[in-house]
């Protein structure tokens, strides 16, 4: 196949004005001069110099806490003192690790001769793994205090420092219990702080990671009436709450919570919600509803992480 732009170059006069314009754009990038040797030599020297940092794949995660602290402070300052600033809200992130069943809660009673769910497969709902935290460029202030009670710069700095310490304990030191305590301190000291939303999300994350699922559920339940979607990664928190409810045995409430996941939400969350709903329905004795959910799951996520289990449950 000949590049059409090469053919166009040979026959420029016959081109339509639109094609001639398109060609002129392409032509602008064709005479690309070679990269200067000096430039390549500079890169070579940088590579052979001792690296102060690991490759980007590693340091990317390592510096999240520091970046978050600095950027949170900057964002908070901008929100407070610049009327033109539009706050940036972090979008919900899918859970990074596969959703692993930690323990079975209840087996699904088959109403039909063929089993709805396999006895050995994840019929129970379990709490999700840690929330995936990405390097947040700007932490969104979720509950901005009213203008009359604008915190001083030192208060903001204290907030940022406390949140930063909690995130460092969680992400760098991998001490989720300490992180949960630190973030709990934050919640007590700054219940309506500028960074309260981010702190609450991080605390739930820390509680789940440290195995304190009941506390994580309590935290989410406390926030639920105000709407979890107002928090950073709110949709994911919604699914997490539903899973924790199911784990605690309250499948009826879990079912309602699973149904609140929006149809246009992130794919990974929809997948978890559908699977969770199927399990809850089966637990509640709604075998046909469960089968319907499993069939829908296989249509929507034929290669999903629970596809094999769903097929087995349907007897395929």
């Amino acid at each position: 196949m000949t590049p059409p732009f090469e053919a166009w170059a040979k026959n420029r006069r016959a081109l339509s004005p639109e094609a001639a314009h398109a060609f002129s754009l392409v032509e602008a990038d064709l005479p690309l001069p070679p990269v200067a040797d000096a430039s390549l030599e500079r890169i070579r020297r940088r590579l052979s110099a001792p690296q102060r940092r690991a490759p980007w794949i590693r340091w990317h995660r390592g510096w999240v806490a520091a970046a978050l602290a600095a950027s949170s402070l900057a964002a908070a300052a901008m929100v407070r003192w610049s009327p033109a600033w539009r706050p940036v809200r972090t979008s919900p992130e899918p859970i990074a690790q596969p959703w692993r069943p930690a323990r079975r809660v209840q087996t699904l009673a088959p109403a039909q001769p063929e089993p709805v769910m396999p006895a050995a497969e994840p019929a129970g709902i379990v709490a999700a793994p840690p929330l995936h935290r990405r390097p947040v460029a700007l932490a969104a202030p979720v509950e901005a205090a009213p203008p009359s009670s604008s915190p001083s710069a030192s208060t903001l700095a204290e907030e940022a420092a406390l949140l930063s310490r909690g995130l460092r304990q969680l992400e760098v030191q991998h001490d989720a219990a300490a992180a949960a305590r630190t973030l709990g301190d934050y919640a007590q000291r700054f219940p309506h702080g500028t960074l309260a939303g981010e702190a609450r999300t991080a605390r739930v994350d820390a509680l789940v990671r440290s195995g304190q699922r009941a506390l994580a559920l309590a935290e989410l339940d406390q926030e639920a009436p105000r709407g979890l979607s107002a928090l950073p990664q709110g949709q994911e928190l919604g699914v997490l709450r539903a899973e924790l409810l199911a784990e605690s045995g309250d499948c009826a409430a879990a079912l309602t919570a699973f149904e609140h996941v929006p149809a246009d939400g992130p794919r990974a969350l929809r997948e978890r919600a559908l699977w969770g709903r199927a399990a809850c329905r089966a637990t509640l004795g709604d075998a046909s509803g469960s089968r319907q959910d499993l069939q829908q799951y296989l249509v929507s996520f034929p290669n999903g992480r629970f596809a094999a289990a769903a097929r087995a449950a349907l007897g395929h």
Partner: protein
Amino acid sequence: MQVSVARNVALAPPAEACVSQRGLDEVYRDHAATVARWVRRLGGPGFDVEDCVHETFLVVQARLPEFRDEAKLTTWLYRITHNVVRHQRRKLKLRRWLMGSAEDAAGHLVEMRPGAPEALELKERRRQLYEVLDRMSDRYRTAFILFELEQVPGAEIAEWMGTKPQTVWVWLHRARAEFLRLSTRMQRASS
């Protein structure tokens, strides 16, 4: 004509050798210029080529011990480069969105040979070219750049992008139509 000079030998990477026995120095010496070209093409104006090439070779350095000769070195290098460029473009996009202007860092292209007015015009056309390309989907954009600008054979593009050659032709066909449509729309909007 610049266009017909294409398919030159300079673009072709050196012959493959037993890579697992090579060190980073050797890979860098043989492939740095090629990687830099890919970065410049895929990144477009305003892209820090040196930094991106450096990042790419940091990844290469870290992963070279894992590299087995089952894959072609150029394919492996291309995929690393593509991922690093994509990552950097995302960061650049965010930075531009936060800072406002997109014109801040496109200065290094003025050092082309023609005189100042021509250079400015060339720079402007190059900016427009990448503005159009940036509106295309990543796969169409990549296929278009590799085939039309970098002039890599279709079979090789298919290997690099991990797909079948027929698929690449389909993508190219659609990418060209998309390019023509978008550039026409942009021209009308500006006039």
